[in-house]
């Protein structure tokens, strides 16, 4: 896992700079928050109330040391016998008998019964030292657990001797160079009932168990760790079949790689709104809205399109069962069953109240690690508030987002907002963790409710500022333009009415144009007809004129002919005669 690599790197830098050597506990997550583990060769106090997991923490420290680091350990038990201890940790997969047989572990049960003991005069605890030394030498132990030293206070009466002997014991452990864990019961207002924390100056860890809404949550805090940086927060942890897992809040920090790759949301129009390319791979997307606005359907689209591309998706449903969800999505034209059958989609449906927040987180961690999806859906994220306070949910989401981002998993969180509350306000707490925030909201008007979708934010892209009508039909989600006019945003039938109106307007305009064109044509025809008529008239006139001219010519000709004839008849004209006589 990447995080462990990270720890190892940090661990080696600490070692090489020779500041303070650390011993990895092997407890999942713990070595990350302590940047390497417990102080090597020093004593660590692990305190907490009854049932907070002290003994288990201590035992896992030894078992992991023996199996993973090759460091044998000694468990000095004051409260449970070796057999009882072996039984109680067998459920966590620790086989103590095998470790004892391989000389990797020694358990010495120290039984002290006050009624059997009488004190007279001065004494010391050399018997304990001898036993511890004997056990350490027997296996060559590098790690020692004493669980729990404070039992001695109730068994032996002389507190003065005990305190000075404890001080000697801690010094002795240090001189032996073993890394020790001492457990102590939580006292009233003090870390331990008898204040043994004052002898442990190097490292103090506090384990607590808190109950919220009848669901118990365990948490761990590094109260003190001298000479090193460490996480100071309260880290939730859980105990399950794999031992203890501490889930660090900022174990991964903000160092994750930001992908340039974009992926489709499965709704083409939504991709267009998101800069035309969809969401960034590995980003976190929040889809919030009131009940029934289609948040899950939107998530199903993302899953569907990812599965179609051959990717693997993990769907955490906290409201619907797999069967119900598949059926419901089929009604909008999305068939998820084939993906489930092909193993591309893993559906994990649980009630949020079934286990505590930490268990949910651990479940998600484990499933993501084993299934290795590219898309994870948490539907809805708001249901976690049933089992924890808002603050805890936020802290948990932060860790979840960090974890998923570090693995470049695209995550869709749906968030249910109550009617009447300010939609943007309701999710402000978690929205800062999100890269893209889609809001599906009902738009009321004209006696109906229609869904409107906004992109409230989307980091790293020029997203649309438009409201789109969110329409769910038998072919899935479609986004339609909405009409924004003097009457506000129009959706649904109002939009349709507007569309019809606009259509009528268009038709009317079309008709008007056609009419005008017809008028023009007619006018042209008229003009042309007039031209024709005029030309005809002109031609008629021309004919007439030409005819008259011809007539005149002919008349002129006949006149002159007549005159000649008459001249001839009247004995020629002198001038004409002379001319003609000379010729």
């Amino acid at each position, binding site marked *: 896992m990447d995080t462990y690599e990270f720890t190892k790197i940090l661990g080696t830098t600490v070692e090489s700079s020779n500041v303070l050597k650390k011993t990895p506990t092997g407890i999942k997550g713990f070595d990350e928050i302590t940047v390497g583990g417990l102080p090597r060769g020093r004593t660590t106090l692990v305190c907490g109330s009854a049932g907070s997991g002290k003994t288990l923490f201590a035992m896992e420290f030894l078992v992991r040391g023996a199996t993973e680091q090759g460091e044998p350990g000694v468990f000095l038990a004051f409260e449970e016998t070796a057999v009882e201890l072996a039984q109680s940790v067998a459920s966590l997969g620790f086989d103590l008998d095998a470790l004892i047989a391989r000389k990797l572990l020694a358990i010495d049960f120290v*039984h002290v019964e006050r009624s059997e003991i*009488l*004190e007279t005069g001065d004494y*010391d605890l050399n018997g304990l030292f001898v036993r511890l030394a004997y056990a350490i030498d027997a296996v060559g132990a590098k790690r020692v657990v004493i669980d729990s030293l404070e039992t001695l206070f109730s068994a032996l009466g002389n507190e003065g001797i005990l305190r000075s002997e404890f001080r000697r014991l801690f010094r002795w452990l240090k001189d032996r160079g073993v890394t020790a864990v001492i457990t102590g019961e939580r006292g009233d207002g003090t870390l331990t009932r008898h204040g043994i924390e004052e002898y442990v100056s190097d490292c103090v860890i506090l384990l607590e168990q808190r109950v919220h809404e009848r669901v118990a949550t365990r948490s761990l805090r590094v109260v003190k760790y001298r000479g090193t940086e460490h996480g100071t927060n309260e880290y939730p942890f859980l105990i399950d079949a794999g031992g203890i897992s501490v889930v660090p809040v900022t174990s991964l920090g903000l160092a994750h790689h930001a992908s340039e790759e974009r992926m489709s949301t499965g709704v083409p129009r939504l991709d267009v709104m998101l800069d035309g390319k969809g969401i960034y791979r590995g980003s976190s997307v929040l889809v919030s809205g009131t009940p029934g606005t289609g948040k899950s359907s939107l998530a199903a689209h993302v899953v569907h399109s990812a599965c179609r591309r051959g990717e693997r998706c993990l769907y955490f449903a906290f409201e619907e069962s797999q069967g119900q969800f598949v059926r419901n999505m089929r009604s909008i034209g999305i068939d998820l069953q084939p993906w489930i059958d092909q193993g591309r989609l893993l559906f994990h449906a649980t009630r949020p109240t079934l286990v505590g927040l930490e268990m949910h987180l651990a479940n998600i961690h484990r499933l993501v690690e084993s299934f290795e999806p590219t898309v994870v859906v948490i539907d809805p994220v708001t249901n976690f508030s049933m089992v924890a306070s808002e603050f805890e949910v936020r802290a948990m989401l932060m860790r979840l987002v960090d974890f998923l981002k570090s693995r470049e998993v695209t995550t869709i969180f749906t968030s249910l907002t109550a009617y009447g509350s300010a939609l943007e306000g309701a999710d402000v707490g978690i929205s800062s963790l999100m890269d893209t925030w889609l809001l599906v909201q009902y738009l009321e008007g004209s006696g109906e409710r229609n869904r409107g979708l906004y992109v409230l934010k989307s980091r790293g892209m020029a997203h649309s500022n438009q409201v789109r009508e969110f329409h769910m039909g038998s072919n899935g989600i479609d986004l339609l333009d909405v009409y924004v006019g003097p009457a506000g945003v129009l959706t649904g039938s109002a939009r349709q009415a507007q569309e019809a109106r606009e259509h009528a307007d268009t038709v009317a305009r079309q008709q008007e144009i056609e009419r005008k064109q017809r008028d023009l044509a007619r006018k042209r025809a008229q003009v042309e007809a007039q031209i024709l008529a005029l030309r005809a008239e002109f031609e008629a006139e021309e004919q007439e004129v030409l005819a008259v001219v011809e007539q005149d010519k002919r008349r002129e000709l006949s006149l002159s002919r007549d005159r000649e004839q008459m001249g001839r008849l009247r004995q020629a004209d002198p001038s004409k005669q002379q001319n003609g006589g000379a010729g």
Partner: protein
Amino acid sequence: MTSLVNGIHADVSPDVWDLRLYVAGQTRKSLLALSNLKRLCEEHLAGKYRIEIVDLLQHPQLAEGDQILAIPTLVRRLPEPIRKIIGDLSNTERVLVGLDIRPR
């Protein structure tokens, strides 16, 4: 188990005092405890006691059997029940009560 104590043949009885003193090396407390024990036994259990000294530095494996933590520890193995007295045994009265030599 039988033993010859003071020339009287006695079987396992309250009259046989089987005591074991655990020490860790020759420390001042250990020596003091041993001398206190011897004096006390001579005074009150003359002739019917047996003291075994176990040095845990030499036999550390023996500490577990009697669940020894404190040093010095005196264990009354017989008569039963087992009793443990820790400390240098300087308070004779308390030791006598602890060993049930004196009624409580």
